[in-house]
């Protein structure tokens, strides 16, 4: 049974980076969302919108140029930002795990797959080596790697891309974390392997009752996996809602643009709605609504900050003109 209190809550998270000239770069600026036990949410946005930084901030792994400047990250009632580095290390891998985009560079080439999986097991479960080895073998079996015992002694270069990603997942899940952050887990894989890996993640989530935060720009993946969707743009959440809400009646012009920039086979399209321009320079975000310089609906009102409104139950949007988004259907993204 799913509980009502969220497993993980990110509240008003702010992550700023500082350039050598001491300029402030607001990569993540007031992001909030939550994740319930056993639920999958998708964090969607263009490159550079702050979705990866958000996920690293949850694990407190922002490098030394950046700083978490505000907000709360609450995991089962504990604010992770108030923990010491040592306590945080215990959270990583045990309660929250992460899998990465490039399985080939996320495994250390000098150790066998088994050694790397065992590292986390020995660290968090304090098992002696023979038991840890058994647990590692079990983890490999869990992710559907055939001949798991043999694979333990193989080096990463001996595995295919899909197998490496499975091994990465085995490593991340070896201590049965409650939250799994998957940062574009399938971007670098073949399409056929992508489907297998996504299926695997979905199946394991079910079995281990994990919350999964899926970070992606691939709306196809979102449609197949996520129960709720959080759309990010330029360091802010611009829309949040159930998968159905987002795909069928999105209210933010950016979400609308994202959805209509995908070629579709099922309806006749004259041309794709391409969102003009690019994500603004984070050193120089527009005041008010950050999407206004690319938005066909923008006017003077957009020079002021929009409100975070709940327009339907559990469907939030951050836009002054959400009610006019229907206009885009006829007008498209031409300004």
């Amino acid at each position, binding site marked *: 049974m799913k509980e009502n209190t969220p497993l993980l809550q990110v509240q008003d998270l702010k992550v700023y980076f500082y350039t050598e000239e001491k300029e402030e770069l607001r990569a993540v600026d007031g992001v909030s969302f939550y994740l319930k036990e056993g639920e999958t949410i998708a964090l969607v946005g263009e490159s550079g919108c702050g979705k990866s930084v958000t996920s690293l901030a949850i*694990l407190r*792994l922002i490098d*030394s140029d950046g700083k978490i400047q505000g907000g709360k990250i609450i995991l089962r009632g504990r604010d992770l930002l108030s923990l010491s580095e040592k306590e945080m*290390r*215990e*959270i*990583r*891998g*045990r309660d929250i*795990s*992460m899998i*990465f*985009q*490039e399985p080939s*560079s*996320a*495994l*250390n*080439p*000098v*150790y066998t797959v088994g050694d790397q999986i065992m*590292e*986390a097991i020995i*660290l*968090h479960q304090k098992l002696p080596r023979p038991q840890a080895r058994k647990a590692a073998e079990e983890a490999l079996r869990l992710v559907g790697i055939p001949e798991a015992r043999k694979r333990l*002694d193989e*080096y990463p*270069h001996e595995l295919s891309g899909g197998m490496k990603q499975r091994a*990465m997942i085995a*490593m*991340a899940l070896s201590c049965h974390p409650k939250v799994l952050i998957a940062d574009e887990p399938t971007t670098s894989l073949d399409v056929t392997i992508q489907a297998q890996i996504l299926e695997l993640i979905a199946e394991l989530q079910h079995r281990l009752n994990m919350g999964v935060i899926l970070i992606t720009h691939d709306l196809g993946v979102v449609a197949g996996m996520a129960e709720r969707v959080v759309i990010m743009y330029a360091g802010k959440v611009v829309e949040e809602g159930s998968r159905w809400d987002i795909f069928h009646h999105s209210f933010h012009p950016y979400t609308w643009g994202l959805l209509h920039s995908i070629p579709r086979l099922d309806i006749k399209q004259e041309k794709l709605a391409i969102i003009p321009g690019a994500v603004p320079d984070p050193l120089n975000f527009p005041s008010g609504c950050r999407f206004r310089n690319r938005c066909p609906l923008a006017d003077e009102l957009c020079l002021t900050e929009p409100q975070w409104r709940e327009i339907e139950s559990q469907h939030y949007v951050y836009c002054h003109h959400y009610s006019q988004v229907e206009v885009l259907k006829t007008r498209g993204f031409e300004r």
Partner: protein
Amino acid sequence: MNRETRRILRRLLSNTSAILGFVLLIFFVVVAIFAPLFAPPPPNKDPYIMPIVTWSSNPLPPSPEHPFGVAGKRDIFYGVVWGTRTAFRVGIIVTLISTALGLLVGAVAGYFGKLWDEVLMRITDIFMAIPFLVAAMVLTTILGAGLDKVMIAMTAFSWMYPARLIRGNILQIKEEQFVLAAKALGVSDFSIILRHVLPNTIFPVLIQASMRMGSLVITAAALSFLGVGAPQGYADWGALLNYARNWMLGGQGEALKYWYMTVFPGAAMVLFVLAWNLVGDTLRDAFDPRLRL
């Protein structure tokens, strides 16, 4: 690790230059270990001082009694054999200390960055800007003659190379995703340096060290040749060449008359350097996991 060992051995044995390198190195090791058998020292004397075998200061060509000839009143064969021990001693001690020192400086600079990096690397630059041979000569002159002084001087001016190499490698490896992945699994900074960063950066350093082993022996010989190295009569290849200084141009219309004075110690040096270079290459091919295909 049985499979691993077999794989490495197979790789070593399939490579001719690797075999040549190891054979040469083993040959030198055997000569060094069994030096008292090959060239018995006179009783109750320091075996590292080449005994005086004749009172004439003219060199003598090879003969059954002195197979490599005589130079500076001393037996060249004796000097070449016992000089092997000197070569190993100088090479190994200087390489070990300078590599350890360089690893420490480079790892601190690379991993902690910022001010540490700035200060340590500028010091490294200063040391690198001074010509090695001149610096070593000046330092030896200040410290006084003697093999230990030569070693100190050489260590003081050779730690910068491993330091720079390891720093550069650490800067690169530090950004690798597996470092981030390890952090995301809760591994501490210290374990990350020790388990994830160093094993990926250490190989170039070890290879460079084994290559430097050879070149250090040449430098030591150069210092001895210039007369600032080993003391008078010390069994050292460079010192033997020093005796040849006045006879190198030959004499009495024969340019190659005193060939044996330079060829034997010179050949020992060339082969010694070659052995270490081949072994260095082989080690890289066999152990560097990044070259595995």
